[in-house]
């Protein structure tokens, strides 16, 4: 029996759509509530980011609770940046008890890239060890080998960078994540179908679901900036030219078109098991992308959970 509605869908073989919301920098959650309400019935699950880019924010677990309250299916992004193994396990127990059972296991960004650079970086575990630890908890024990009163069950995932500039070491890491129990992988934003095809050729030997990361570009400048600064991102020149060619103020529209087209092709060619749309800061446009990609469907909201 599935540990979450999302897990059920992962196993169903249907083309999946996930997206993400970033919690606010502050106590005002109105905008996040708005985004969750807008997206919850349009996608299969919503990731809630965990202090993305090492910026101090409202917590991922809190955001997941909110998604749950509003009737959506949350994916709890958990990084190892701020919590040691004791705190991570405690949060996992809390999550499970509130029906938050999809966990995306990440190492987390370096503290130095964020807005609180002087904080102590934790990294007691890495992403692979976090996956393993969850598996251990599912066997009824904590990481130190002590028995748990009540065993949590999760659906666990991780991330992968198919367009990393040096792919071999990343593939070794990918193998380890799968071996550690990852059931699904959401990729870093991907822009080249060829690299997705190549990666899927490799990944298809494993029993794991891959959701291609879709980042919505809003201008040629943004694309160039990401190419230069964001690891694992390679926007092709042809896409940059396309964005550069449009009138001022129409960039985002073009970006939506590009993303929708990309998603359509992935689906038509059955390249992978779904997409993960990252509209960083532009969550409002996700419905438009889905429409343009002809992915509008009424999604099931209730499912069986083996609690």
């Amino acid at each position, binding site marked *: 029996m599935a540990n979450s509605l999302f897990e059920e869908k992962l196993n169903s073989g249907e083309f999946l759509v996930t997206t993400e919301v970033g919690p606010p920098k502050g106590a005002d959650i109105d905008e996040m509530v708005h985004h969750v309400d807008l997206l919850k019935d349009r996608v299969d699950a919503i990731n809630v980011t965990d202090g993305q880019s090492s910026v101090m924010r409202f917590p991922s677990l809190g955001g997941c609770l909110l998604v749950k309250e509003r009737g959506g299916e949350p994916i709890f992004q958990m990084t190892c940046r701020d919590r040691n193994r004791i705190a991570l396990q405690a949060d996992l127990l809390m999550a499970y008890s509130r029906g938050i059972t999809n966990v995306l296991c990440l190492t987390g960004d370096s503290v130095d890239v964020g807005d609180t650079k002087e904080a102590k970086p934790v990294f007691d575990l890495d992403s692979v060890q976090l996956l393993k630890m969850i598996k251990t908890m599912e066997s009824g024990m904590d990481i130190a080998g002590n028995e748990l009163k009540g065993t949590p069950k999760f659906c666990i995932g991780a991330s992968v960078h198919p367009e990393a500039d040096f792919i071999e*070491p990343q593939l070794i890491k990918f193998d380890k994540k799968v*071996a550690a129990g990852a059931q699904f992988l959401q990729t870093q934003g991907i822009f080249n179908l060829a690299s997705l095809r190549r990666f899927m050729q490799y990944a298809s030997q494993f029993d794991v679901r891959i959701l291609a990361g879709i980042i919505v570009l809003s201008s040629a400048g943004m694309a160039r900036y990401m190419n230069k600064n964001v690891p694992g991102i390679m926007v092709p020149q042809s896409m940059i030219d396309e964005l550069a060619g449009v009138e001022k103020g129409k960039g985002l529209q073009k970006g939506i078109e590009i993303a929708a087209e990309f998603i359509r092709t992935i689906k038509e060619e059955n390249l992978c098991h779904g997409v993960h749309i990252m509209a960083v800061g532009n969550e409002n446009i996700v419905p438009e992308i889905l429409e343009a990609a002809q992915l509008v469907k009424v999604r099931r909201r209730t499912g069986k959970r083996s609690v």
Partner: protein
Amino acid sequence: MIVAEQKNLEEIMRMIAPYERVMILGCGTCMTVCNAGGERETSFLHGALRLAQSKSGEGTHSFSEYTVKRQCDYEFLEVLDDKIDDVDTILSLGCGIGVQAIAERFPDTPVLPGVNTAFMGMAKEWGIWDERCAACGECRLEETGGICPITRCTKGILNGPCAGTKNGKCEANTDMDCAWILIYNRLERLQQLEKMRRYYPPRNFLAVARPKRVITKANTEAGENNG
């Protein structure tokens, strides 16, 4: 070796302010090699402090300087026995270990740290020092091609590179090589990539529980008490 950087003059002057007779104490070992507090730096600092005092017209410090072979060893501190009563403080240019050795050896004399001890490492080229060892207590260099991920990866992770590596550099500092790319390349060269494919469990932080103590066999005869 241990690498440090001398504190700036302002901070040093703030520290010595309450004391009249200041002995600037260099260290002839690591601090000499990394140019933070050897005989030469001790004498430079001595000159700089004198100059600063005469320029400001304030301050009535009297300075002396001395460099011992090694500050982190009682044996080499003995030479100070007949000088210690003539000073109000020791401004140590030894590493943090040297400073504490002095504090233990001369319980009645305040000791001030003149350098910021940075790490254990080596010279990359003249004047550029890089960290190499974090003293984690469980050396795993055999598994990682002789390159330490605990020290040289910002996150100290054990199962391969994070997603932040780009052009072989680290996301936290693009001047620094990504440790895991170095490890991959080295293991590939040695035809030992299977070592990277292995799963490594979380570190055992009991091995670095602070403070640590190592007891060598030679020193564990019955009745021996190092406390």
